[in-house]
């Protein structure tokens, strides 16, 4: 029995290597795995560049084809074909998520077999819709002259919208030939349906092209590529005719013009949704919608309201008040629904999601949001580990160490005998294997302990006093970066450090540029860190970066 000998050794080794207990609900590896993704899934710091790396001078990145995300494709089709927007049902699968938590990483967005089928189906769905009754509106000539010339109008108009540039003569000819072939076998609407289906799944429609043309030592993006980048990066959809005309007319030829245009786009409704999407991906507050808390019956009715609360809070801080990271971390208000205010024990807002000041000692900023606290908790208990990991990864850009293969769960909690913190400390802090890792993030998470698994404040847990005094360890875990008594001091302490600003700007540029390349957004990092710029300003400044209009030669 070869197994037995070898296995006995393995078992012993594992037993020694493993933590005696862990609350880590997800595994983590250097290559990125579960456990991060805003402290709750999917991510972990990637093996690529550390987002917090500050380079000083901006660089120019690689040329890319960026496949549209599911959301971008949906927005694009809705914008190009508003006449059929309400009747379209597109079945598009979830996009792959990067280790940063973003679903727009161009290196992961490929068209494999499944996506090819879905694009084909999406194209056919659009084709079926536009070739029906709306065709008379979309293509007025179709009511009278159902011929090739009429079809050419359709190809020229919608080809340009979908390709975000005019079709070449060769391309136009191909689509005309397809139209003719289908027309010969079927009828005019069916031929338009086929043409639409082909246009929608064309690589020229599916990929945002950021390649440009060779210009000395770099590639310079075309005006159409620049307009496309502006539109998708800052509004998540295709460029409008007006934006395209501006680019083609040379009105976006300077960094200042690009930055101004980006700011203008960010402040549109679509822009605000793009900003919201960054924060949701970065912090992960929207995930609360899919979790349950078996011991809190009313939670099921409140969790979606928590998402709305945080969304409104972020909008207030970032857009209305033009705030930066300090404001996000330390804002003294929140924006609950009336039901949530009652749930939290806060003053009622004048209307749902209006601002209310938090009572003293009841948290500040985004880290005290119910959606964040509930997401980063267990079903029935708070989780100092998850909450600590959020801060460690998303605000400090530190890598969570590899978790050994054998990580047990905590023994069952003993309400009344131990608080959650005591429970964690009794296991994580005294065991060598566990302590090595958990000492890097559990102490941060203890700062949240006044908030239970659904974000409600508590002075006591099971009749025992809650202790949230703790510290943020240094990166190597050997010292204290700073100490705090509660979540307010933790947030304020973070806001006073430089690292969270450098980390945040790294995430912002990664999100906008859709690739984990270092040093692409250096121009205004210092200004952001010194609180001269808010989030929207920094995001807009990325349009003025060299990478926005240039690419390095391969």
């Amino acid at each position, binding site marked *: 029995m070869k197994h037995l000998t070898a296995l006995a050794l393995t*078992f012993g080794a594992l037993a020694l290597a493993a933590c005696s207990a862990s609350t880590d609900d997800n595994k983590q590896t250097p290559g990125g*795995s579960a456990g991060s*993704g805003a402290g709750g899934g*999917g991510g972990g710091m990637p093996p690529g560049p550390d987002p917090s790396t500050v380079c000083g001078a901006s660089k120019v990145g690689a040329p890319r084809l960026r496949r549209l995300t599911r959301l971008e494709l949906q927005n694009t089709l809705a914008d190009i074909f508003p006449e059929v927007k309400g009747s379209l049902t597109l079945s598009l699968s979830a996009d792959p998520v990067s280790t940063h938590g973003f679903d727009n990483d161009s290196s992961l967005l490929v068209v494999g077999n499944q996506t090819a089928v879905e694009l084909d189906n999406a194209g056919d769905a659009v084709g079926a819709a536009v070739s029906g009754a709306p065709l008379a509106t979309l293509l007025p000539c179709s009511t009278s002259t159902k011929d090739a010339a009429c079809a050419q109008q359709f190809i020229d108009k919608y080809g340009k919208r979908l390709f975000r540039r005019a079709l070449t003569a060769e391309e136009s000819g191909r689509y005309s030939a397809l139209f003719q072939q289908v027309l010969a076998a079927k009828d005019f609407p069916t031929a338009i349906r086929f043409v639409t289906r082909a246009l929608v799944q064309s*690589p020229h429609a599916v990929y945002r092209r950021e390649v440009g043309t060779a210009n000395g030592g770099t590639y310079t993006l075309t005006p159409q590529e620049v307009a496309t980048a502006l539109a998708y990066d800052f509004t998540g959809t295709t460029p409008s005719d007006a934006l395209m005309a501006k680019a083609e007319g040379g009105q976006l030829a300077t960094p200042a013009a690009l930055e101004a245009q980006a700011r203008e786009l960010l402040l549109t409704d679509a822009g605000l949704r793009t900003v919201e999407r960054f924060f949701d991906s970065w912090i992960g507050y929207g995930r609360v919608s899919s979790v349950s808390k078996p011991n809190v019956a009313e939670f099921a009715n409140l969790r979606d309201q928590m998402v709305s609360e945080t969304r409104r809070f972020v909008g207030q801080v970032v857009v209305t008040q033009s705030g930066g990271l300090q404001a996000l971390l330390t804002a003294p208000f929140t924006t609950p629904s009336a039901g949530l205010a009652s749930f939290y024990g806060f003053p009622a807002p004048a209307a749902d999601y209006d601002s209310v000041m938090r009572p003293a000692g009841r948290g500040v900023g985004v880290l005290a949001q119910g959606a964040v606290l509930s997401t980063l908790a267990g079903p029935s208990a708070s989780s100092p580990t998850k909450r600590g990991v959020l801060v460690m990864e998303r605000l400090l850009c530190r890598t969570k160490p590899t978790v050994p293969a054998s*990580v*047990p769960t905590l023994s069952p909690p003993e309400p009344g005998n131990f608080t959650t913190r005591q429970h964690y400390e009794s296991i994580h802090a005294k065991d060598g294997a566990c302590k090595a890792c958990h000492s890097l993030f559990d102490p941060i998470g203890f700062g949240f302990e006044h908030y239970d698994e659904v974000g409600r404040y508590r002075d006591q847990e099971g009749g025992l006093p809650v202790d949230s005094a703790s510290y943020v360890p240094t990166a190597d875990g050997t010292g204290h970066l700073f100490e705090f008594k509660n979540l307010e001091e933790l947030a304020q302490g973070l806001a006073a450090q430089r690292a969270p600003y450098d980390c945040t700007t790294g995430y912002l540029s990664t999100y906008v540029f859709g690739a984990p390349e270092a040093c692409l957004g250096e121009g205004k990092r210092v200004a952001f860190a010194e609180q001269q710029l808010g989030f929207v300003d920094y995001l807009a400044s990325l349009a003025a970066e060299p990478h926005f209009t240039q690419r390095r030669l391969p």
Partner: protein
Amino acid sequence: MGFVAETANGLRLRRRVFLSALGLGLAVPAASRLARVALAESGAAPKRYMFFYMPHGVPPEHFRPQVAGADPTQFALDKTGVSILGPLQEKLGTRTSVIEGIKYPKGAMTHEAIVVALSGVGSNGVLPDDTVPRTTLEHQIAAGLGVKPLILGACAHRPFGLDKDGKLMWDGAAVVPEKNPVAAYDAVFGQLGQAPTSGPDPNVALTDALHSLTEAELEGLQKELSALTGEQTKLKTHLDAVRALKASGSGAGGVKCDTAPVLAGVDAIRTASAGQGDDFFLKEENFPKLFAAQLQLAGAALRCNARPVVAVQGMYTNCEFDFGFMGSAGAHHSALSHTQPQQAQPPAMGLDTTAREKFAKAQRWFIDQLLTHTISALLEPDPADPAHQVIDNTIIYITSEIGECAYHFTRTDKIQPGPNAPVLAYVPSVIIGGGGGALKPGRVLTFSEDRPAGDVYLSLCQAMGVKGTFPDSTGPITEVLA
């Protein structure tokens, strides 16, 4: 007992099966039925294949079959009262085989092995690589049969997208299972019994011309951007996918039902999800009903041969859904599966047996669901081969990305549950069904040295009559092949 009056070979086998069933404590009628259906022989009926994923391993003490003596066909599936495979005992005992002693490729560690488990593609480094294109077992079988697989998943990835913890099935790129059983049902059965009124034009030549246009565009882009080596892989993947799309048919394997089946679970979801967005399919409280509906659809799709290849991924590996709904309260991954020594006080007192029993019940629930919603439909006469049941022409394969649930073994290893003697923990590998006569009847195979998982996959491909390619395989496991 007319079933014994068969050929000599059949007589021997049937008697053994019959005695085996009796030995398992079944009543004579049940044993008789088992023995009769166990020997369904191959006809010209289409073969079906289903993959069923067991998330995050098992507690082996509640999983391993109990083999009586040296005869691998004499075994019981339920020995602890909560044994995970127990529900299969009565209805499928002799049509269930368990393989003990498989391993995943190099680089497969912890539950991260989910990204390599079904492909045999390992990693040259320390961790599984989720960037290398690969094709997993169910897609290889579908490709070999020339059909489109039905890939379903109730909680197959996190709400915000597909990350490494959900990348179980691959068709070149990682595949996102369909969450919505209503959409899947409509895609599979929507046209059944109706004259085509919508959907892609059936004129193959026109569709082919359309895809040729896309293909030409991609080829043009490849040439134009030939200097961009980083993007060439992306374009090649896309081009391969379009070519596969051109080559694919409807996906159906020759539907054998005249009318669309009525599936109560799917209808219930259709009603409940009406007017709601995608969020409905991501909410934790909807998980049991979605899973049930998906399994009902899987059963119907297989029975009707509307989709001869089906896969169901109930959850991503470390999903934290609370299983209180079925009686094992606690998050599936962190609270239930990670059942380790609580204090690790020397000497080790073994694993927490109470917690492990809760997890066993949770994993048994998955098997219960499979049996109730899918296999029950396969115990009906095969519409394509009425002399046999569908299950006789079907192979269901069950596995997990790890073996033991707490230690995350990706090969055979040993654990100590409670104060009892250590037991070996194997990566779960269960084969159900007759495969149209391509499989030997139920048995327990235990390898003293681990075989690559790819060997099992190769065997299943052979049983399905297709050619499979798995980098880690050394050859088929002949002991399971008829």
